[in-house]
């Protein structure tokens, strides 16, 4: 039963990707709905099937192994071809190195007799994220892409849907497979898919950014294959779970550090962050998919899986400091950005840094926080990205300042994006709960906790000002709003997911997180959840009380609203309004009328990209070198 589901999870997205190619555009809407339903059904089936391993051996294995080999060769040939065609020498050099490593490992690493899939609770969570959020994003795309292509005179939707669906197949494989060789194939497929999707527009910027993503991820790929070779030749380990259970955790430090490096590149941590920032030239569904449910999660997935190999070691501490540093640096950079997608990109990198920091701390509580943050962040970030895309279609801009007055132009959309933002920074929602858990867990390491404190304050600031801007009501009301079911259903669905997962946080914790931490560290965090409280050994988070109070606030507001009959009036403008034209007009010193405006504070001179990026590169590279050096010594 489990075996069928595992196979279906990989095969179904591939079938859908072929269907997208075969069928005409008019049917995409129905295909996407079907894909969404199939994705939800399969991932729920996997959860119901329970945990376990699936062995592939014998003739099946031989066939699949040769398919894997052929695909690997095809990927290398394809990348060689495109990088030569576009004369992108760094990529060409990197792919040549990977080809060399692949050949070396083919000749020197001992053949394995079987491959296995390892379904643990963490894989189930990841499968849920990928197949529920990922397919919801594809559904959103069917309501988005026509408009997008119309503006840019493109007609590449077949490539788009094919790659998006194939991406999900690779991601499903990645989070389930245990054999490192196969894992590497899925890893490289996601890299390649992201390259195709980022360079979707086929203009110069798109292709350059695509190559940057490809090159930086190939750096990670090279580290990955070096780690596989080391593990295979020196330690005779060929599975991911084998690294964790190996008794010689200390001698494994170098390959583990290399695998973590691959994870950093995939998760766009500093100094690799530029690929994710460049990824936003692609259509919004691509950014949403890369940032929330798939690509970047693959990196942190590997790192969390490796926790047993570095917990309590110097490498673990180095990883924790590195992640916390990325968190504070990227939060500061996000503060200085006006472009909504850039803010979100930095916020993604920052939150992944927080996940990595939690994994690095390696206590049961911290690891639980890391896994929970992956889940909650994926939902909230997917909703934020999709809403930003929809806002861009509604008001024609992704500048935060242009979003003021959105509540009047598109109320439902504003409510959804506000929910997503609130869920990123305020209790009682999941992301804050996990941030609280990771902060409490990090308090044993002074450097990490200070970074987390600063980063958390910066996070509050950049989301609060954006939240205030979208909710501010201005008098002008000129945008026409189209509400399509294909766009609004995924948005509302994700909004509902945020609320439901936050309410059921303890159930999720008991069902998925606790068993997983037990698998990774052999001890469970001492956390209990009586009476709507999330209680650990060092603190308590009364999320139920906060939900009740929030409901109470809404109740009080509606109950007292009728007691005080509202009377609408205009802004106070020092008695100088010109109401005939606009509520925001005032009389200036020359006795003519001007329109008043106010904008948010971005602290460009303190936290701007030109001020911080170089510093970030230097320190992050230093930290990685320290981590690697710690691995060798």
């Amino acid at each position: 039963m489990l075996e069928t589901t595992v196979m279906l999870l990989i095969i179904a997205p591939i079938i859908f990707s072929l269907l997208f190619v075969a069928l005409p555009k008019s049917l995409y809407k129905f295909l996407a709905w079907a894909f969404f339903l199939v994705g939800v059904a399969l991932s729920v089936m996997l959860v119901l099937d329970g945990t376990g391993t699936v062995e592939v051996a014998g003739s099946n294995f031989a066939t699949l192994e040769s398919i894997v080999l052929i695909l690997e060769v095809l990927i290398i040939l394809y990348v060689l071809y495109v990088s030569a065609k576009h004369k992108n020498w760094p990529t060409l050099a990197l792919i040549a190195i990977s080809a060399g490593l692949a050949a070396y490992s083919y000749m020197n690493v001992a053949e394995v007799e079987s491959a296995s899939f390892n379904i643990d609770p963490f894989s189930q969570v990841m499968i849920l994220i990928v197949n529920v959020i990922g397919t919801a994003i594809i559904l959103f795309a069917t309501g988005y892409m026509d408009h997008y292509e119309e503006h840019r005179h493109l007609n590449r939707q077949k490539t788009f849907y094919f790659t998006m669906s194939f991406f999900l197949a690779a991601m499903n494989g990645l989070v389930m497979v245990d054999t490192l060789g196969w894992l590497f194939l899925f890893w490289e497929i996601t890299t390649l898919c992201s390259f195709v999707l980022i360079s979707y527009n086929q203009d110069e910027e798109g292709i350059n950014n695509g190559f940057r993503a490809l090159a930086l991820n190939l750096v990670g790929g090279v580290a990955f294959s070096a780690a596989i070779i080391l593990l295979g030749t020196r330690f005779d380990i060929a599975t991911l779970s084998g690294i964790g259970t190996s008794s010689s955790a200390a001698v494994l430090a170098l390959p583990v550090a290399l695998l973590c490096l691959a994870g950093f590149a995939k998760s766009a941590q500093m100094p690799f962050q530029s690929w994710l920032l460049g990824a936003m030239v692609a259509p919004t569904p691509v950014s949403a998919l890369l940032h929330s449910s798939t690509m970047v999660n693959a990196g942190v997935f590997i790192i969390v899986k490796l926790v047993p190999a570095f917990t309590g070691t110097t490498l673990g501490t180095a990883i924790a400091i590195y992640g916390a540093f990325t968190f504070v640096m990227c939060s500061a950079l996000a503060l200085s950005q006006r472009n909504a997608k850039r803010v979100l990109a930095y916020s993604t990198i920052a939150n992944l840094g927080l996940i990595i920091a939690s994994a690095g701390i390696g206590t049961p509580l911290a690891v639980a926080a890391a896994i929970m943050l992956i889940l909650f962040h994926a939902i909230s970030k997917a909703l934020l990205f999709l809403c930003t895309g929809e806002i861009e279609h509604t008001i024609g801009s992704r500048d935060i300042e242009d979003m003021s007055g959105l509540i009047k132009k598109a109320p439902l959309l504003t409510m959804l994006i506000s929910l997503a933002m609130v869920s990123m920074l305020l209790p009682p929602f999941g992301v804050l709960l996990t941030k609280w858990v990771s902060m409490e867990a990090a308090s044993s390491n002074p450097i990490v906790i200070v970074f987390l404190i600063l980063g958390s304050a910066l996070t509050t600031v950049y989301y609060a000002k954006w939240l205030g801007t979208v909710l501010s009501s201005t008098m002008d009301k000129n945008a026409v709003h189209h509400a399509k079911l294909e766009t609004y259903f995924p948005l509302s669905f994700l909004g509902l997911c945020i609320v439901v997962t936050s309410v059921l946080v303890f159930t999720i914790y008991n069902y998925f997180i606790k068993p997983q931490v037990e698998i990774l560290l052999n001890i469970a965090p001492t956390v209990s959840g009586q009476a709507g409280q999330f209680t650990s050994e060092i603190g308590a988070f009364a999320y139920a009380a906060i939900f009740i109070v929030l409901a109470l606030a809404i109740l009080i507001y509606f109950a007292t609203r009728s007691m005080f009959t509202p009377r609408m009036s205009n802004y106070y403008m020092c008695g100088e309004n010109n109401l005939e034209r606009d509520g925001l007009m005032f009389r200036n010193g020359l006795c003519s009328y001007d329109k008043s405006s106010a904008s948010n504070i971005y602290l460009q001179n303190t936290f701007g990209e030109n001020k911080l990026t170089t510093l970030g590169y230097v320190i992050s590279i230093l930290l990685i070198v320290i981590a690697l050096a710690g691995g060798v010594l």
Partner: protein
Amino acid sequence: MNVNDILLAVLVLIGAPIVGCIAAGIDRKITARLQGRVGPPLLQPYYDVRKLLSKDNMIVNKSQNFYVVVYLVFIVLSLLMLIFRQDILMIIFVYTVASVALIVGGMSTGSPYARVGSSREIMAILAYEPILILYALAIYLLTGTFKISAVVDASTPLLAYTPLIFIAMIFVLNIKLKKSPFDYSTSHHAHQELVKGMLTEYSGPGFAIIEIAHFYEYVFLTGLLFVFWTVNPVIGFLLSTAAFLLVIVVDNVTARVYWQWMLKLSWTFLLAISIVNIAFLYFSGVKI
């Protein structure tokens, strides 16, 4: 939840605004005397609120009063959580909900004065939130838990090992009470270019709710300072009262500054002394 807890909660719900109201009255009285005026009666803040509640509910949009209700309710919740000795980190996050609600309420009106005030208040969050969380961290390092109850049960006052954080917390009190030199988001003093800042478009019942929430906030913020000396509640009370009076005096003897100045002060001096204090706690490993 037993009968005593419920009685205590009711007592706090009723008592806190009374205490806060008197504190606000004392504030106005002292300010008046320092300015050579007689000043209003002690209960003037109460008369103000009563009158505001009877006024027309003038609004510029339909949602603005919702944020004010959220502000009030979450201030009350954070105060209750403090009284019931909950997790201090959690209390700070709940308190952040209240602060953000007021900011969003200001911005939601869309008025330029309110938006200027709100953006500055957002910067205030950047200035004080790290200090507040470092204060929570100090409690954790000294007691091994984030729960306030551990501080209350301890036999040594918190202040004995956290004098620098106490100094930083007085600045936080100054920023949060929006007193001069940090009263740039909204102010009790007349500032022409800001009008009433963040709260410009609030009047009547909506503004009354903000005033009531302020009463609770007075008690909550001084309560955070009370935690520094819970061993002897009398000393704790005197300590927090002294800090409050100091802030009022500072309010009257200083002029307001640019918000940039506050940010610099906070991210250099205040953070530095707090981190020094934390480093001391971490390396010495003292417990209370």
